[in-house]
Structure formats: structure tokens, C-alpha cells
């Protein structure tokens, strides 16, 4: 049975706008014009226990709004949402005790106090029994490697260190579902890798369902098997990551380094060919022409020094997808 069920969820916001024209600023002080924005438009999906889902979309697409509805903060205008057999905004207190939230841009730790104090407070807020708490904390401290950070005031931690503490704070009460809103924002490469590694482990070991919104496609690629794409409040794609790639980026790219400079020429089955000095870049569609055929065709004409076949960069796929859908 699915853990999270959303059907036909819609939410509108009223946005005040300043009137245009010469005296717009002055008029705006007296009369307000407001515009209704449809942030979410009949969003429907289901998520099963233990799934790791990437939720992506351009800025302002409605990602955070969805997360806020699922965490019981916002009430949608229409639609049904059932998470762990509860309606989040109706039984908020019970609901939030089973979920964990990490907002990359907001902190849930006490700024002036050591993280340890914040954890102690969370223990009381979630009424975690002392023994369970001790055990869980030891586990998190070890896997996230935050032992030395616990006694330092949070304001003195680096962003990467703080984020690890934030994740620990979100998981202290062993939630069944974890919402991560841009968890890797602003982190350096090492911290990102460490955080992804941890999330993956936590997902496998404890079966925590995770929903991750992000703009970092590497997050999605390394973590999520399933991707949902939202744009202008509508769910545009929901499926496996390779399906997304197949649909929006069927082409593969061959980068061949040759022995000598060459002139441009044609190869059967190639969608596009670019030559830059002695580097040859060929795009082709593997469902039409198999990769080995392409390599043979190139190799038959020139001596190859090195060759790499890769997928199109996922960032580019998403960018072209947004473009295609006029987002």
C-alpha cells in the first residue's frame, strides 16, 4: 500500500501587485491590485514505502508548496492527500511526529547553542525515550561523523558541518518519511558526496521514504530511482530517471581523440558531427544505430587514440525539457 497519496491537489495564492504607470508607486500605497496564482494544479501521485524520489522543477514551479502541503503546514484549496493514513493538515501534530524535514535554507538548530542542546530539546519535543534517544544519537553521530561538532555553538560551524547536524536533527525521532528541501544547496563537493552517501545508507538500512527537491542534478542521479518533474504547478513527468533520459535525451555522444587534424566529413547514422582540432564529437541515437556500429564506422576511417561514449549531461536534458515545455 502506498504511504503517500495525493490526488488532484490544487493551491492558489493571492499576490499583490503594484499598479503600473507613472504614479504606480503612489497609487500602490492606496489601492492594491492582486493576482491569483495557481501554485499547484491538480497534482496527483503516489509514493510507496522506502522509495527515494527526486522532485524537480524550475524555481517557482510549486515544489516547496507541495512539500509544505505534505508536511501539514499548508492547507490545499482542493484535493485529497493521505499520508500514513492521515490527512496532514487536519491531524498536524500526529502527522509531524512521523515525518522529518530538512530545509536547506532554514535551520532548525539553535544558533547560539551547541547542537547537543538542540538535540536534547528535540528529544523532549518528540518524547523519545532516553535509551532510544541515546542509541539513535550514537548511531547518527557515528555515520554522520559529527562527534566533535556536538559541543560547538552552531553559529561557529561551517555550512557543511551544520547541514550534517541538521540531518541528524531531522532523523533523531526515526521518522518514516523524510522531506529534504534542497539539502545540498551551497555545500562543497566533499560535503555533498558525504551527505548523499549517508542518505542512501539511511534509506537502505531503515527504509525511510525520502522526497528530495533539488536543483542539483547529481543529487538526483546518485540518489533517486524515481523522478517527478513539476512545472507551473503541473506534474509533467513521473517515472524512472532512465525513462526521463530516454524520452528527452535519446542521443549519445561519442568523443573521439584522433591522431591528426581532420576536416569535417559525414558518418552514416550520426545526428550531428563537430570537429575541434583532432577531437571529434558525434551525436547519435543508439536505438537507430548501435554504438559498436558507430565506433566501427569512425575507426574504419581514422586511427583512434582515445574514445569516450557518454550520455548527454542531465543538466542539459532538464534545461531543454523546461525549454520545450515553455517553462
Amino acid at each position, binding site marked *: 500500500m502506498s504511504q503517500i497519496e495525493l490526488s488532484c491537489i490544487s493551491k492558489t495564492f493571492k499576490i499583490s501587485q503594484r499598479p503600473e504607470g507613472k504614479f504606480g508607486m503612489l497609487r500602490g500605497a492606496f489601492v492594491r491590485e492582486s493576482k491569483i496564482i495557481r501554485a499547484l494544479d491538480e497534482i496527483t501521485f503516489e509514493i510507496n514505502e522506502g522509495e527515494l524520489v527526486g522532485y524537480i522543477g524550475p524555481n517557482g514551479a510549486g515544489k516547496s508548496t507541495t512539500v509544505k502541503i505534505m508536511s501539514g503546514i499548508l*492547507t490545499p484549496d482542493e484535493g485529497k492527500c493521505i499520508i500514513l493514513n492521515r490527512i496532514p493538515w487536519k491531524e498536524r501534530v500526529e502527522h509531524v511526529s512521523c*515525518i522529518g524535514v530538512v530545509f536547506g535554507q532554514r*535551520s532548525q538548530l*539553535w544558533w*547560539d547553542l551547541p547542537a547537543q542542546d*538542540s538535540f536534547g530539546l528535540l528529544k523532549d519535543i518528540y*518524547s523519545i525515550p532516553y535509551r532510544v534517544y541515546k542509541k539513535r544519537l550514537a548511531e547518527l553521530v557515528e555515520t554522520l561523523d559529527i562527534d566533535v561538532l556536538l559541543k560547538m555553538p552552531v553559529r561557529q560551524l561551517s555550512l557543511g558541518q551544520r547541514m550534517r547536524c541538521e540531518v541528524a536533527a531531522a532523523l533523531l525521532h526515526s521518522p518514516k518519511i523524510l522531506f529534504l528541501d534542497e539539502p545540498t544547496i551551497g555545500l562543497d563537493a566533499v560535503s555533498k558526496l558525504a551527505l548523499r552517501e549517508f542518505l542512501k545508507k539511511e534509506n537502505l538500512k531503515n527504509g525511510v521514504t525520502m522526497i528530495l527537491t533539488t536543483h542539483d542534478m547529481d543529487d538526483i542521479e546518485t540518489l533517486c530511482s524515481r523522478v517527478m518533474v513539476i512545472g507551473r504547478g503541473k506534474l509533467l513527468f513521473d517515472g524512472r530517471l532512465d525513462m526521463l533520459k530516454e524520452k528527452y535525451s535519446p542521443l549519445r555522444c561519442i568523443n573521439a581523440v584522433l591522431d591528426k587534424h581532420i576536416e569535417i566529413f559525414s558518418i552514416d547514422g550520426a545526428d550531428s558531427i563537430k570537429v575541434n582540432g583532432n577531437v571529434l564529437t558525434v551525436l547519435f541515437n543508439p536505438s537507430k544505430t548501435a554504438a559498436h556500429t558507430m565506433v566501427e564506422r569512425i575507426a574504419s576511417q581514422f586511427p583512434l587514440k582515445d574514445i569516450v561514449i557518454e550520455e548527454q549531461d542531465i543538466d542539459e536534458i532538464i534545461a531543454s525539457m523546461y525549454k520545450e515545455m515553455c517553462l
Partner: protein
Amino acid sequence: MKTGKAFYMPTLKACLSIFRIKTAQGLQYRMAGLAGASTSIFWVLIEITVYTIFYTYSNNKEAGQIAGLSLRQLVSYAWLAQLFFLMQPMRIDSEILGKITSGDVAIEMCRPIDLYFHWFSKTAATKLTPLFWRGSITFLVGIIMPAAYRLSLPASFSGFICMLISFASAFLLCTAFGMLVCALRLNIKWGDGPTHIIMLMGGILSGAYLPLQLWPEFMQSFLLVQPFAGYLDIPLRLYVGTMLPADAYWAIGLQITWAMIFIFTGRSLMSVRLKSIIVQGG
């Protein structure tokens, strides 16, 4: 909704824990306490000077005595008013205000705890912590002043005990009113103006600027029953002896009644506001 002990006990424990952590945070600011204390002391000394001039040289120098407040009582009142004044809701706690305006209230709402009592505990802690440094320094300076400027002993022992109980009620009342204002402020579009005016009105009606007994005669009965007398006027009357311990029952009862009214309205208002809350930013 879980009800009864199963639900409220963990909440109570969490609230105490929040209160503790917030207090621990507040006590870090020693320098601010010292600076604040010097402001308070300076203010009291000016007040005492002005009152002394009025009581000694004005055309109508018996007016104060007729109102029932001697200069000596007034001096003590001024000192203690500075202590009680620290509990008054003068502004919404900066942390809470920050959470409302930046949208971090989202995180607070992801906690399995009633947001009203969560913030109540925080507000309560911020009302109490200034007393620790700023309050205690002001108090110590008050009792070592030369006779004309000194904070005198309480009028009677029973009056003192009543004052302590009334102090606790004042603490509850101040926190409850602070939370009511906070609930009003949850309407993000209001800005700070209206809430400041409301809090300032409370401050004036509390007697912090001019003891309520010195206000015009015809206003006296109104002044005593309005909620803000409970901030400091009631406990201070008990201390200086212008209110008899026998009257403490109804006076403290009045404080608690108002506190309950504020808690009830604040909490209902907050739950209404939360239903339609706009969570700002990303």
C-alpha cells in the same frame, strides 16, 4: 486528537525543555544586562528627582499624599517598577518575529507540539531572563542607595508574600499578553506598527511611567480593573503597602482572570491564523 494526560504530559515536558534552553540562551548576554541595568538606574534616579521636586516644591504638594502615595513609597515603587518593567511585552521576541517574517515558522510547524504553547514557553523565558542580570544589578544598586533614594523594605511581611505571588501572576499575564500580540502579528501583512501601539498602550496603563494611584481620581476604579494594572501596579501596591494583603485575593484573582482571557483569545486567534498562514519564501 489525543486528549488527556497522554497528550498533555509530553507537551508540558517539551515546553519546560524549551523554556530551559531559551533561558540558557538568554543568560549568555551578560554585557547587555549590565548596559541595561545602567539605563534602568539612570532612569530611576531621574524619576526620583522629579518626584521629589513635585512633592516638595509644587503648589499642590499634598496631592500625592492625598492620592495615598508618600514620597518614600513612590521611591520604592520607581525602583521595583524597573524590575517588573523588564517582563512587560514591549516587543515580540526577535526570534519569533524573525520566524514569522522569514517563513521559518514552517519548521516550528513541523514539530509535534502545539505552536501556541511552544512559543509561550519561549516568550516566558525571554520575559524572565532580563531579570537575571539587568534586574538583579538594578535591585542591588536600589538597596544600597542613600536613604532618600533607597528601595525601602516592604510594608509588611504578608504584603511581601502577596507581592511574590502577584509577581508570578504578573509574569503569566505579561507572557499571555505578549502571545496575544504575537498571534495578531502572525498576520504578516500588518507589519510592526499596530502591535507596537497595542503594547505601548499596555505599558502606559500598567503604571510603569506614572504610578496608577497618581492618575486622576475619576479614573481610579477603571485603572484598577483593566488588565494592565496586573503588570506591575498590583504587585507594587502590595509591596509598598497601599493595598492591604487582605485585598490581595481579588487583585491576584483579577490578574489570573485576565491572563486566562488572554491565553484563550491568543490561542484561538493563533489557530485561526495558522489555518490560512502564508509561509514566506522558497
